[in-house]
């Protein structure tokens, strides 16, 4: 047997026990978010609760800047915005029977984006200081007392989530309210969500719940509904925070089929080794032949 089991896929593929793989012998079960965008009303209570609980600053033009992008003035996940509600106005019917006669209707898509807490987290893989770590809950956090602001994680994240804070110099992102989890509380965004669009709980339970919700929506004629990030066989080994979307991921500003960059890392090291060999051979060649 040379094939890897789901316990050994450290770089890519399904991973049954993400905290165990990170070295925890005893740990609570993996928790996550299921963000059901079909019931999001765009109230931004999640954004506010997150800012309040985590004491996030308002720099980087996070507030008091009008973007002109529908009701979205947060614009993106940043070092200072760990929840971001996207607003999409579409000129097409939600369900055919509801169209206004001429085949057109406006539909609103609203979705609260967040760090995905990937099973194979590129930010964590590439961090050179060990500032980014896997917690006992299976989530990914930055230790601010260790981070030296090299910004490697910023370019490694396939979702454009983690960011370096201007003036502070360190990388910041959603911790899934690690402090609240340690105290037995649910994260602030999930607590504040008035429609339960953001659901928090053990990841296995959320995945089952999401399948039921998806089947209900399909049965109701919402054929565009799909789950995003829930599949352990996807390019990141499944997300700890996954979504139910009503349109293609890129419409929400999400990458359609992201793959953790470290999947190809062994191959990259081999090519660098070959290049080092070319360099060594080139120098030796330059010194060969008789001196003139």
């Amino acid at each position: 047997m040379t094939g890897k089991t789901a316990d050994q896929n450290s770089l890519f593929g399904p991973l049954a026990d993400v905290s165990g793989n990170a070295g925890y012998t005893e740990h609570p079960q993996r928790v996550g978010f299921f963000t059901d965008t079909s019931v999001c009303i765009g109230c931004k209570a999640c954004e506010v609760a997150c800012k309040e609980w985590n004491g996030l600053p308002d720099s980087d033009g996070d507030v008091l800047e009008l973007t002109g992008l529908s009701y979205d003035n947060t614009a993106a996940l940043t070092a200072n915005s760990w929840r971001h509600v996207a607003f999409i106005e579409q000129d097409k019917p939600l369900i055919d029977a509801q169209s206004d006669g001429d085949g057109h209707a406006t539909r609103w898509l609203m979705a609260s984006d967040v760090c995905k807490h990937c099973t194979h987290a590129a930010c964590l893989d590439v961090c050179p200081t060990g500032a980014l770590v896997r917690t006992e809950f299976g989530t990914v956090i930055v230790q601010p007392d260790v981070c030296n602001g090299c910004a490697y994680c910023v370019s490694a994240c396939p979702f454009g989530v983690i960011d370096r804070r201007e003036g502070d110099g360190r990388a910041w992102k959603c911790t899934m309210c690690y402090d609240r989890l340690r105290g037995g509380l649910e994260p602030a965004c999930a607590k504040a969500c008035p429609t339960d669009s953001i659901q928090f709980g053990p990841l296995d339970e959320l995945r089952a719940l999401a399948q039921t919700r998806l089947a209900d929506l399909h049965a109701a004629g919402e054929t565009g509904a799909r789950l995003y990030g829930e599949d352990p066989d996807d390019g990141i080994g499944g997300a700890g925070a996954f979504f139910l979307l009503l349109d293609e991921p890129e419409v929400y500003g999400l990458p359609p089929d992201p793959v953790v960059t470290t999947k190809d890392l062994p191959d990259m090291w081999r090519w660098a080794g070959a290049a080092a060999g070319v360099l060594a051979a080139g120098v030796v060649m330059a010194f060969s032949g008789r001196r003139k």
Partner: protein
Amino acid sequence: MSEQLQVPPAEFQSYYGRPILKVAKWKEPDLPAYLFLGEMSGALAMVGAMAHATGRRSLARTARLASAASAFAGGAFLTAELGRPERFANMLRVAKPTSPMSMGSWILAAHSGLTSLAAASEVTGSLGIAGGMAGAASAITGPLLATYPGVLLANTAVPAWHAAHRELPMLFAGGAMTAAGAAGLAASVVSRDRADFDAARKLALIGAGVESLAGYGLEHGHGLDSEPYQTGDGGKMLAAARYLTIGGGIAALAARRSRTAAAVSAAMLTGGGVCAKIAVLRAGKASAADPKYVVASQRPDGQPGSRSLA
């Protein structure tokens, strides 16, 4: 009747055209300067060891001093990229093969130490055996220091960098040779011992070939992911790099007889190497800033919904 020969350009959906990825925080001049000085130091360490072994005293001395100096200068530019430069030492807190920056920090630390010892031995004339061994060992760390940044950049979500994981280390290997060759050519202009430096001239020629080929691969090897190397700020810089590197190579052909040609070649090769590094940084930023590159690289057939719906 006209036939439609081209596939119509693909339309990509996005969220108001906003980037999916974060654009790299790394900046000019720090990152290109680090890449250039690191690869130069790497190749010079090997040149120093070879020159020492083959009795080219002037070249050995030049290469060892320049290798140590460029390693430290490169390290300073690397530190300047940090949001918290005073925490540079945290790089040596862990050793992680999954983090090319962790591996690179260890390589740089070892290389700086070894080249310093070799240079100190060269200057003081003491430390004979230790200096020689350090110089020989830096011939191992050197090629690693020169090429690992190719993995550093490729191991990201940036389409233009990730797709180019074969070409980037080769570009830096070629750049290492032209940079070291240029340093030797520049030294030969003022040296009385010009025959010593013929190896540097040959190295510059080999490097110009490797660097140009790798640059061509960046521009043409990866479909849409190559576009940032052809157009915009990245494309302009890569074109400038190509002309300077090829021109520097041609000038190197005449450098054995002409001090002027040696000086011109050194300047052009240095300029070409620096431009190539700037081009790679700018292309990566352009690639991350436009969501179409991200979407296209993840939808090989160009069609939405190619990933099966759950």
